[in-house]
């Protein structure tokens, strides 16, 4: 435990020196504020309070931004140490690879939490300041925070797996971008195309919901939109998946971090310093 903490402290300090903490917080804050400003235009007499509306738009932002930030922080974690030549020495210390990985993980997740809380907090403050009813949206906001962290945890761990498999920072960066593109952008497009081609057949009813659940980003979106009163505001794929029970999407986003960490550890164990 103290060794995990030691690794975590060192990693956090490095991220601080490399301005990663500042960059992550600024990025989340900037995007959240832009969203809050865009959402503050009068929306007519929609029933939802302003915070719930903000949370709905933050959800669609988080699906893109949280995995991106997570991958940006983690892709260098192991490949960078291999390249710098710092790995052999630390591996001769009485510390397991799992402990080293968890140390990095807690540091990176902590930085992500800071960025998420600052970003969402700013957007929420803007909503509450302009709408007295916005307090009603607080539970949705809290839910968005912890699910964002689960999503982030998944992609941080996936980033480690990529980092360990690639062995070189350049290759790891390329793989991370590719993975983000496939899992966050192309996956949904592909599913949408398949659903359209299927024309309401057995793929749409039997296979499609499971494929949505299998992708942590989709499960994240499903859970937050299904649980939120502003579901109506969400368009596209989630409408087609309105029948998926919340328990299923919750299970997916809760299990993914562990699966991804397992994958990362297996890949890290294969790295010969």
């Amino acid at each position, binding site marked *: 435990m103290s060794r995990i903490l030691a690794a975590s402290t060192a990693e956090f*300090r*490095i991220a601080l020196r490399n301005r990663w903490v500042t960059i992550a917080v600024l990025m989340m804050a900037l995007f959240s504020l832009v969203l809050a400003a865009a959402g503050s235009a009068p929306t007519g007499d929609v029933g939802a309070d302003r915070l719930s509306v903000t949370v709905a738009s933050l959800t669609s932002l988080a699906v893109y931004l949280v995995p991106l930030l997570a991958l940006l922080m983690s892709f260098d974690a192991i490949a960078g140490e291999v390249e710098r*030549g710092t790995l052999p020495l630390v591996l001769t210390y009485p510390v397991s690879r799992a402990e080293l990985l968890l140390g990095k993980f807690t540091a990176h997740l902590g930085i992500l939490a800071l960025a998420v809380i600052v970003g969402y907090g700013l957007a929420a403050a803007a909503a509450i300041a302009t709408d007295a009813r916005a307090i009603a949206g607080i539970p949705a906001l809290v839910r968005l925070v912890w699910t964002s962290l689960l999503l982030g945890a998944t992609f941080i761990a996936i980033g480690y797996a990529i980092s360990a498999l690639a062995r070189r920072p350049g290759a790891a960066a390329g793989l991370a971008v590719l993975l983000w593109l496939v899992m966050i952008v192309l996956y949904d497009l592909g599913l949408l195309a398949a659903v359209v081609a299927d024309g309401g057949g057995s793929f749409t009813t039997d296979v499609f919901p499971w494929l949505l659940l299998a992708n942590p980003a989709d499960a994240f979106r499903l859970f937050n939109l299904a649980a939120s009163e502003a579901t109506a505001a969400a368009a596209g794929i989630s409408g087609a998946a309105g029948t998926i029970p919340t328990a299923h999407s919750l299970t997916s986003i809760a299990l993914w971090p562990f699966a991804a960490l397992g994958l990362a550890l297996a890949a890290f164990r294969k790295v010969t310093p």
Partner: protein
Amino acid sequence: MQSLTLSTITKAFGAVRALTDVSFTVAPGERVALLGHNGAGKSTLMKIVLGLLRADRGQITVLGAVPGSNAARTGTAYLPENVAFHPSLTGLEQLRYYLRLRGETPAKAIDLLERVGLKDAARRRIGTYSKGMRQRVGLAQALIGTPRLLVLDEPTSGLDPVSRREFYTILEGLAADGVAILLSSHALTEVEAKTDRIVILRDGLLVADDTLANLRRKAALPIRLQVAARPGSADEVAKKLAGGRRNGVVVDLLCQHDDKLARLGDIAALGAMIEDVEILPPSLEDIYSHFSQRPAS
């Protein structure tokens, strides 16, 4: 019990046979120098001892445990060749991290840095350190806690002459406390005076494992006698002694250890023609070359 035992260690990287049937031991309190040409397999052998690489064949015991096991890692300290650290951390932060990984109090970091002469630079980032300063950080981390086996890969590379001497003084103290030390080096003269035993690898084969005195005897290299003749008599001296002329006045002779006195007698018999005689025993470089060069075939 031996601190380190290797028996018939074999390791190949594809077609490259890095180590072949290497066996030797290191006892507590013993300083063993591992010598060999570039690519002889020294670093590979050390990585196998530390459990970073797995041998293809053979057995190793490190402090009575399996290499890489928790017991072995707890009692072993390592200094890799070309040691590297994260450039964003300061020397102090880096050592505090290593101390905590070994379960020691981070407060000891500044003492360790002082021991290797880095106290003034402790709060500067390692990225700004010179090569020798980074090497000293590497030495400082190897002194953490109470290791019972030190594995040091070219520990003095990049160190200035004074720091080298200080480094060997530290090693002497550790060895006196019973710490076993295995170090590799290309600086033969320092190894000569500061280690107890020499192991030489050639193309992954162990070709020597003994004290320097014994290696000197085994190599049976000729002793060189340098005879300085009086001006004008060098030719005659060279002819009478059947030696080679080197320059205007010096005549070179080679002789075996057992012939030394007889040859000196011959020289003394020339009396007034001789100005001086130097006896040059085979240098460590000669002995090293004798063992580490491939036999001419």
